[in-house]
């Protein structure tokens, strides 16, 4: 990777809005790497958490927002609670994800998490409480993993751990109101949940897997 540093990149509005919006002083980070050392998922990441912070420090917005790392953060807060400079790394990850949404910069391989989040929120918006079957069904349908976890389903029904119908509550209006007023919340609803790209990706992945197995 080569990155040209100049007056403009260093003073990019990206860094400033980030510091303002999530209240974290990025320049405080002295790159000790304790966040990466304790991260349970860093083995899967394309950049370690400390590298993401470093890239933010250098104003590399595009690279950061299109990284896999930010979608792999499980929000377990290990980094935040151990940071010697008291930087809320998890909050910064949240912020970056939110920004990636609004900028439509999710990398093609990482569409599942945002899709799931959208379906989840849509689900709450409709029912007030989570309707698991709806969530799982919808997610599987839209992500192209039609039969994911299907084997688990009968047991879940038998044990009455998952209901066939959503809960009925009398306050669906009030929930919708909250969603509407929370600013850009409408976006979750209006955004197309239909993601042909992801569907195609997952289906072809399945196909390739099957072919591999046949070999």
């Amino acid at each position: 990777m080569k990155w040209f540093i100049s007056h403009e990149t260093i003073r990019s509005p990206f860094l400033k809005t980030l510091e303002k919006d999530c209240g974290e002083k990025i320049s405080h980070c002295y790159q000790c790497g304790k966040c990466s050392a304790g991260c349970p998922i860093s083995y899967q990441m394309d950049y370690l958490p400390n590298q993401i912070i470093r890239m933010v420090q250098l104003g590399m917005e595009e690279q950061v927002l299109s990284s896999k790392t930010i979608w792999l953060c499980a929000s377990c807060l290990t980094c935040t609670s151990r940071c010697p400079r008291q930087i809320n790394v998890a909050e910064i990850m949240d912020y970056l994800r939110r920004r990636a949404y609004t900028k439509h910069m999710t990398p093609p391989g990482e569409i599942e998490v945002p899709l799931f989040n959208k379906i989840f929120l849509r689900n709450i918006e409709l029912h007030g409480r989570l309707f698991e079957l709806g969530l799982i069904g919808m997610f599987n349908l839209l992500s192209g993993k039609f039969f994911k976890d299907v084997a688990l389903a009968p047991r879940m029904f038998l044990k009455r751990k998952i209901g066939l119908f959503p809960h009925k509550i009398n306050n669906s209006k009030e929930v919708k109101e909250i969603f509407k007023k929370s600013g850009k919340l409408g976006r979750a609803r209006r955004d197309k949940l239909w993601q042909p790209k992801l569907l195609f990706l997952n289906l072809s992945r399945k196909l390739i897997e099957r072919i591999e197995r046949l070999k």
Partner: protein
Amino acid sequence: MKYAYYPGCSLHSTAKEYDLSTREVAKALGIELIEIPDWICCGATPAHITMHLLSLALPVKNIIKARAMGSYEIVTCCAACFSRLKTANYFMRTDDEHRQKVEQIVGEPYKGEVKVRHFLDVLVNDFGLKNLKGNLVKELKGLKVACYYGCLLTRPPEITELDDLEDPHLIDDLMRTIGVEPVQWPYKTECCGASFSLTKTDIVLKLSCDILQMAYDEGAQAIVVACPLCQSNLDLRQSTINKKYKKDFNLPIFYFTQLIGLALGIDGKKLGLDKHIVPPAALLGEKDKLAKI
């Protein structure tokens, strides 16, 4: 002892046995839990990843509903709900800018004054271990468990204010009180990957496998949890983990309330012990702790 009870979505579906056992234990101990009428989802992880304000507004709405019930503290059992409610409270207390925005969304002033408690905290600190001991019908002798706290109960400490950050002990204390032996193990607060349960199942399998392995290695016969997401990852996905990583785990994953319920002499079925995917009957029966469920 009266509390406003916020079960949360999981306790009404995948973690029904957590809800059942909590209510049973509370009833047996004379702790009154009054469910918040018309409570709504706290937004969980998807909300704070997607829209910050929403992730504050949803919990605050619930807290305001609880406030309307009278001057109760809120009790919740779900670690994720607990974390979201506490975080929202923290923002309302300390961040004027966010408070004003959220107040506008929920349409009511709120300054973070209602206390949010975890049921663990209520049992240990309000009810008291000594008091609990006095109420026991039997002790669950001979059972060795790993107490697993997960991410959200202790982190970040300034928000959760619940237990020791790196070496929490509330569940261990409760287990010791009912005669169960907690093993010392280092993965008390490791992450199981909860929020990726559906989206990145591979990660969940790997992390959960590590946790099961560590508990097994340190001699635990079961894992005791206080979070519905941890439970479902470790229990529901245990067979998949066995298949994928060629393991042979057979570790029942209990909610702490279930084991306390047993020690209080409550029938296993009432505690939802039949709802487990990894059946606990063998372990409990073999140890001759109670009648077969």
